[in-house]
């Protein structure tokens, strides 16, 4: 098990290097620092001096991959690739366009993100599993049929409508909660309850339908028939046999997203004005702040790989037949 995890972590290194190369190519080769400078400074007051100054302030005046002018090892380190991309590996993110330290910004912004994403994830999972179990229990009745119809209909609505509609009804019509904003401490609940609810509701359609299929697949197995033949009550069969076995694919499917919760939800955060990492990213995209976008891409891929490793470990935790080697 330990050896397996070490191997997986080592395997992650080439992937991260690949991610780094892709982002480097996207951000510096396709789009040279001169282009970025012109874009940031605006088209009108661009002089070659201003571009040079902009590049020097941000350390973009170095060569891309290889510095001929430098000495010894510095030929490789005094380059944009080393300074901006390789440094991400030691979590040195540099500074954003408004000269703030990105690492500090991430540390303060991760808490609002997590306080929105964790309730959505946990409560959402519980709601979807219960709903799917209900449909599976009453399979082939009207409840099941209309449940599936509702799921398909809910899947067909864009998240944007849930957010705009929810905000309009709860905040503008009924004045239940503030439209947007955020406060520290326990006061945050007032601002979080609506985005959490919307996050849960918008996820019900797709997840419940998928879980229902998993349950129904399990219900047709032989061991379930045996359990019924032994004379167990249908509820015992559902909870003790079907639910526990169907949890294996469900858990392994959701474990991969757990680390990504950290990144927050892009849409909800920016609509509700929650100062988390999701709105940070959206603002950076809108302001074309490449340093921030680059850092978020890197963090996102690290978290994804962590999620993959956690998935493998969770297989062994829920299914004793699987041994990692």
């Amino acid at each position, binding site marked *: 098990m330990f050896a397996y995890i070490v191997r997986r972590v080592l395997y992650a290194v080439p992937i991260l290097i690949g991610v780094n190369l892709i982002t480097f190519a996207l*951000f510096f080769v396709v789009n040279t620092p001169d282009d970025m400078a012109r874009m940031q400074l605006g088209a009108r007051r661009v002089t070659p001096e201003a571009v040079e100054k902009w590049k020097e302030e941000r350390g973009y005046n170095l060569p891309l991959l290889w510095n001929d002018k430098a000495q010894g090892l510095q030929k490789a380190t005094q380059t944009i690739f080393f300074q901006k991309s390789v440094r991400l590996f030691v979590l040195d993110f540099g500074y954003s366009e408004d000269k703030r330290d990105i690492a500090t910004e991430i540390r303060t912004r991760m808490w609002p993100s997590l306080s929105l994403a964790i309730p959505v994830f946990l409560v959402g999972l519980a709601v979807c599993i219960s709903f799917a179990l209900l449909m599976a229990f009453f399979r082939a009745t009207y409840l099941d049929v209309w449940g599936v119809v509702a799921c*398909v209909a809910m*899947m067909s*609505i*864009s998240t944007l409508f849930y957010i705009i509609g929810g905000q309009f009804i709860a905040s503008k019509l009924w004045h239940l909660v503030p439209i947007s904003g955020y406060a520290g401490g326990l006061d945050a609940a007032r601002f979080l309850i609506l985005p959490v609810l919307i996050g849960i509701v918008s996820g019900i359609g797709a997840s419940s339908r998928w879980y229902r299929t998993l349950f129904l697949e399990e219900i047709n197995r032989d061991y379930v028939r045996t359990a019924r033949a032994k004379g167990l009550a249908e509820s015992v069969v559902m909870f003790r046999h079907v639910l526990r076995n169907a949890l294996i694919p469900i858990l392994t499917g959701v474990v991969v997203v757990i680390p990504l919760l950290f990144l927050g939800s892009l849409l909800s955060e920016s609509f509700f004005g929650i100062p988390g990492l999701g709105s940070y990213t959206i603002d950076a*995209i809108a302001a074309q702040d490449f340093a921030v976008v680059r850092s978020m*891409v890197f963090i996102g891929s690290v978290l994804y790989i962590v999620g993959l490793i956690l998935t493998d470990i969770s297989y062994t935790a829920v299914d004793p037949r699987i041994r990692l080697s």
Partner: protein
Amino acid sequence: MPVFSTGSFVWIVLATDLLVWLLVAIVAGYTLYCRRHPHLAAPWARVFRSPPGMASLVVLVAYVGIGLLDSAHLRLALPGKEGSATAYSTEVLSVLDLGLSGLRGRGEKTYSAPLATRSYAKELMELPGGKQVRDFARLRYGGAHLKDEGEWGADVAGRVLKGLCFSLVAFLLCFVLVKLLGKAKPQIPWNSALGALGVLLLLAGPAFALSSGYHVLGTDKVGQDVFYSALKSIRTSLVIGTITTLVLLPVGVALGIMAGYFRGWVDDVIQYVYTTLNSIPGVLLIAASVLMLQVVIERHPEWFSLAAQRSDFRLLVLCAILGLTSWTGLARLLRGETLKLSQLEYIQAAHAFGVRDTRVLSRHILPNVSHIVIIAVVMDFSGFVLAEAVLSYVGVGVDPSTNSFGVMINAARLEMSREPIVWWTLATAFTFMFALVLAANLFADAVRDGFDPRVRMQVAT
């Protein structure tokens, strides 16, 4: 850029038009091919036997019809002097625009509510005597034919009735046609198809009848008819949903099958590529690529002689980026299936006979994974349509000048927070998008049930 001149106008073929018509040709060719091969026609016959499948197909056909009319572009000739070379307008129109010329040209000043005759906000008006008052002004076009606004109710009712009559006639025509011709194929649920058609006609008839005199769904901030915007947005959605598939299909199929068939280092490399691509959060990768391409487009204004070509290129690029970042799921599915298939006896036998790899791949592997490809194509469609809206909101979607549901929703966000609120843009975008995505989802389900051998086995037992 190909241009075909016929005197009073020139045909313009935009890049996405070309791909759309190519896609139509591919689908037509595939249909003919299926008809001649019973084993390919059988799963499709199962799809057409499902009532929700047929009903959603009717809705999809209606959407596709509007999209195709909107995919034939032309430039009208400007009235010029005799003898001089004809000059053409820089505005690129589509056949749909010509059909809806009543809707397109009749812009108001700004917001107006659905079926309104007066503006939504008070504005400064000059009375004949020179005095100025603030009041709700009469609209330039909406209800302008009414001399007395008291006739409004009767006029609207009359138009709705006229529209309903048209719908009824059209429906009866289809009904008789289906009853006569449908007898040949009694296993197809004609009634559910007719039901969907009936609902569509019921909505479309009055809407078009009213649109000649009013703005059925109101106007937006710049006074454009919202009904017209919604109809124009259909093409964008369809292009995103289909062209993206056209991009991801060759990549996903080729890499997935190769990884599963050749194994060894080929498999390692392909797996490495898709794990790397997968590990970058989707929206961020797309956002980064689109931002970069925006710079490229801005640097080369000489590539595009018309504004329409520029926004069209951006739409195409968005499809390409979406496609190149989302082939990984299909490749992984196909890799697994190919791994399983290449262990089977008939593949081993082909190897033993010395059949070349390319032939084994094209004759034995590809036909046997085609059901996965078809299911993936129809399942992905609705996802791409929804993704477009989100990307346009983030600011990395289609060009703001392109009509799209994402752009409409983005505008609606501000409209919902103004006082009094403007609700009709959001409601229209919601209805049109919901109908499209719901139909696509239902059709995808029918296709999956028809093609997936596992589902078929469950039904049989």
